[in-house]
């Protein structure tokens, strides 16, 4: 399975480079924007931009596999079908970790610059990013696996919209019920992990029965 992860990383390699590059640009832009906007606002915009870019890059990299018919070839390799899915999800997790590392770097840079950073805002960014990174690529992949990778972009938009609506509706309804924001953030993280696990299990089920 290590070979599959290696292949996946070669596959997402260029989008990963773009993501890290865009984070570097974001750092520079957010430093400039700090002169105009309050610090955490610039950070928020920058981090969000990076996360969105990363997710789009990852999702399009996943569909490239199918265009190359590597997913057909995987079936004849000496690996189990479930290993193919496992490798995909491990790649998504590693991608999410790298993305989180980039956001942390941005936070660190801001901290070094002596900008005012509100812990609650940072918590929100991490939660939102964590949710997007776990929910969007996995759900997009699952839908594409089941209904066809030619509709990948459509599924990406759908899951992205669904995740944003889910996130903000949780906070709006939670706020009305006067829940603590930390508790809501933890709730969102738990939901994201549950969606990730469910998408993984369903993907294995779908892939085991899929004809290529």
């Amino acid at each position, binding site marked *: 399975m290590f*070979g599959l992860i290696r292949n996946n990383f070669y596959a997402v390699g260029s989008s990963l480079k773009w993501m890290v590059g865009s984070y570097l640009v974001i750092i520079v832009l957010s430093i400039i924007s700090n002169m105009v906007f309050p610090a955490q606002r610039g950070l928020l915009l920058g981090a969000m931009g990076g996360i969105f870019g990363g997710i789009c890059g990852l999702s399009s990299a996943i569909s490239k596999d199918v265009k*190359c018919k*590597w997913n*057909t*070839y995987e079936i004849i*390799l*000496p690996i189990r079908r479930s290993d193919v899915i496992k490798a995909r999800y491990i790649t998504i997790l590693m991608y999410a970790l790298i993305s989180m590392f980039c956001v942390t770097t941005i936070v660190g840079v801001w901290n070094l610059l002596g900008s005012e950073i509100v812990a609650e805002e940072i918590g929100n960014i991490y939660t939102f990013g964590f949710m997007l990174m776990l929910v969007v690529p996995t759900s997009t992949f699952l839908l594409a696996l089941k209904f066809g990778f030619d509709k990948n972009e459509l599924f990406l938009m759908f899951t992205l919209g669904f995740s944003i609506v889910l996130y903000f509706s949780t906070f709006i309804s939670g706020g009305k019920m006067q829940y603590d924001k930390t508790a809501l953030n933890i709730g969102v993280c738990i939901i994201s992990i549950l969606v990730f696990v469910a998408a993984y299990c369903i993907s294995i089920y779908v892939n085991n*029965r899929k*004809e290529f």
Partner: protein
Amino acid sequence: MEYTLEVNNLCKSYKKSTFKLDDISFVIPKGGVMGFVGKNGAGKSTVIRSILNIINKDSGEIKIFGKEMLDADKKMRNDIGVVFDFPTFYNELTAQQLDKVLADIYDYWNHDKFIELLLKYDLDIHKKINKYSSGMLLKLSLCVAMSHGAKFLILDEATSGLDPVVREEVLDAFLEFVEDENNTILMSSHISSDLEKIADYITFIDEGKIILTENKDTLIYEYGVAKIKQEDFDKLQATEYIASRIRGLHIEVLVMNKYEFSKCHPTLLVDNAMLDDILRLISKEER
């Protein structure tokens, strides 16, 4: 006799298509080369995909090395090399990166052999796969299939995108591969001359059915095609020929034993049957 591949009563149909595989049965003895011949859409690739578990069969039995291949049979997959008629590798990779990927996947990946084959076929190891031509992609697939110690090669139109010079080299490589009596090849191809060169057995498939499976030498040395006039054709009994086809003013007749046919009908001229002639004559459309 020990068989590398046994396909028994294989059936496969699709919900949105009228095409189906209908009771496909054939075997390949260990050490043999089976040529799989048929028109476009005859079902060759569907059979190969069923053998490889890429698609799920409706019924029937497929045994490779004497047993059904399950998802967990990693060992068996190590022993099977496959070349499709389309590129299958992630095209952002270089051959060098592919080498590393496959070395982590196959138990007996032979790096030296892979590099040797890449050099033999003039493939740039540092070039991205998306910069390869279709012929180069096929050559790359062949290099991979022959670099992990496979004992059974499944080739789906593997030589179709190659120029005659490289095709000759590749066919020689296949012949070298089957010099080891433990190695077997299943090769589907439109190019009958390739099959005439290397195949031991030929299986004809048409509209999802096996029409004929025969030893290649029997086909070439015993089968024959007679071009006869209508009045001569009318005198023939149905058991004397396998298939017939009107061609201009003549009727082409495929016979199973040209010597016996000539004995019975000394005035009729019987030519050797080429694989293309046989395919043309036994295809349902042409009958």
